[in-house]
C-alpha cells in the first residue's frame, strides 16, 4: 500500500489574517511628535540684583494682543525679524566685558547698536492675549538668527580644526551620533567655542 503523505495546510486565508492585524495596527498607530524648540527657563530668584544694561545692547521684541510685532519700537513683519536680529547680534560696534573687540563679527560696527555678541541681549515681551502661534513663530525666528550666525561661524572655524564643510547644526548632530567616525571630543570643543562666541541671550519679560 502506498504511503499517504500529510495533506498540505491551506494557506489561502493567511492574507486575510494578516490584513486583519494590519488594519488593527493602522488604526491604532499615532506617530508621536517629539521635536520642538527647546528653551531653558530662568530659575526663580527672590532678590534679583538689577544689572544695568545699556539700552543699545538690548533688542526689544514686543508682541501685542492683536498679534502685531513691535521691534525696537517699530512695527515689523515677521519675515523681516530674523534679518533684523542677525544685524543686531552681529553688529560688534564695541568691546565685550574683557575689553576685546569682536573680530569675527561681520556687521556694520554701528556705535549705536550692540557692542559685542557677548553683551547683546534679545528681550521678548508678550501680552496675555498674544496667540501661541505667533509666539512660536517669533521664538523660531530668533533661534534661527542665532543658528544662522553660529552656522556661519562654524564654517569658518571648522576647517581650521579639521572639520570641513560642516555647519553648526551638523556639528551638533555629529557630536550626538555614536556612529560618527571623527573625533567627537575635539568637535565638542569647537561647538563650545562657537556657543561662547555667539551666546544665546534671549530673555523673556514677565509682567
Amino acid at each position, binding site marked *: 500500500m502506498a504511503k499517504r503523505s500529510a495533506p498540505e495546510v491551506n*494557506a489561502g486565508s*493567511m*492574507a486575510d489574517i*494578516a*490584513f486583519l*492585524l*494590519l488594519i488593527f*495596527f*493602522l488604526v*491604532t*498607530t*499615532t*506617530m*508621536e*511628535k*517629539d*521635536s*520642538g*524648540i*527647546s*528653551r*531653558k*527657563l*530662568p*530659575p*526663580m530668584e527672590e532678590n534679583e540684583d538689577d544689572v544695568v544694561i545699556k539700552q543699545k545692547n538690548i533688542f526689544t521684541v514686543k*508682541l501685542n494682543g492683536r498679534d502685531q510685532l513691535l521691534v525696537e519700537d517699530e512695527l515689523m513683519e*515677521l*519675515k523681516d525679524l530674523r534679518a533684523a536680529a542677525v544685524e543686531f547680534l552681529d553688529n560688534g560696534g564695541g568691546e565685550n566685558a574683557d575689553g576685546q573687540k569682536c573680530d569675527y563679527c561681520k556687521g556694520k560696527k554701528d556705535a549705536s547698536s550692540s557692542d559685542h555678541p557677548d553683551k547683546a541681549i534679545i528681550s521678548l515681551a*508678550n*501680552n*496675555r*492675549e*498674544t*496667540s*501661541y*502661534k*505667533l*509666539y*512660536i*513663530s517669533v*521664538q*523660531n*525666528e530668533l*533661534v*534661527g538668527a542665532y*543658528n544662522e550666525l553660529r552656522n556661519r561661524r562654524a564654517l569658518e572655524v571648522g576647517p581650521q580644526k579639521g572639520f570641513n564643510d560642516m555647519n553648526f547644526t551638523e556639528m551638533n548632530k555629529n557630536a*550626538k551620533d555614536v556612529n560618527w567616525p571623527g573625533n567627537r571630543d575635539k568637535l565638542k570643543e569647537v561647538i563650545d567655542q562657537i556657543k561662547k562666541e555667539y551666546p544665546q541671550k534671549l530673555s523673556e519679560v*514677565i509682567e
Partner: protein
Amino acid sequence: MSKFKKKKGGDLPAVNTASLPDIVFMLLFFFMVATVMRDNTQMVENKLPSADQIEKLEKKNLVMHILVGKPSKQYKAQYGDEARIQLNDKFAEVNEIQAFIAAERASKREEEVPFLTTALKVDKEANMGIVTDIKQELRKANALKLNYTTIQGDVANNN
C-alpha cells in the same frame, strides 16, 4: 487538420496572489514597529504650530507632557470653550502643575530626575496668557528644561 490549434477561450490567466501575504506582512511589521500605544486619551484640541529650528527630544521616557487647548467636542458642554490644561487623563488647573511635576519626579529614578524635560503641547490657537502661567508654575517647581513641541514646517504655515 490545422497545425495551430485555437486556444480554448480567450481568458487572461489569473494574477498570482501567492506573494500577497508577504507584502501584507511587510506592511504589518512596519506599522507594528512604528506604533506607539497612546497611554492617555487627548481631551483637548491640539493642532501644533510649525517651526523649523527644532531639536529632537532625546529620551522619550524622560518627558513630561502638558497639553493645552480648547476642550474637544464631547467636553465642550461641560468645560466650555476656553483653552484648558490637560495633565495625564483629566483637565487640570494651573495650580495643579506643581503637584503633577512632583508626581512625575517621584515615578522616575533619582539619577534621572535632572534630565526630565517638560514638553508643552499647546494648540496654536491658544493665547499666551495660559502658557505664561504654566511657565511661572514650572519655574516655581524648578522644572526649567522646557520644549515647545512643534511640527516641522515653515512658520508661514502658522497663519
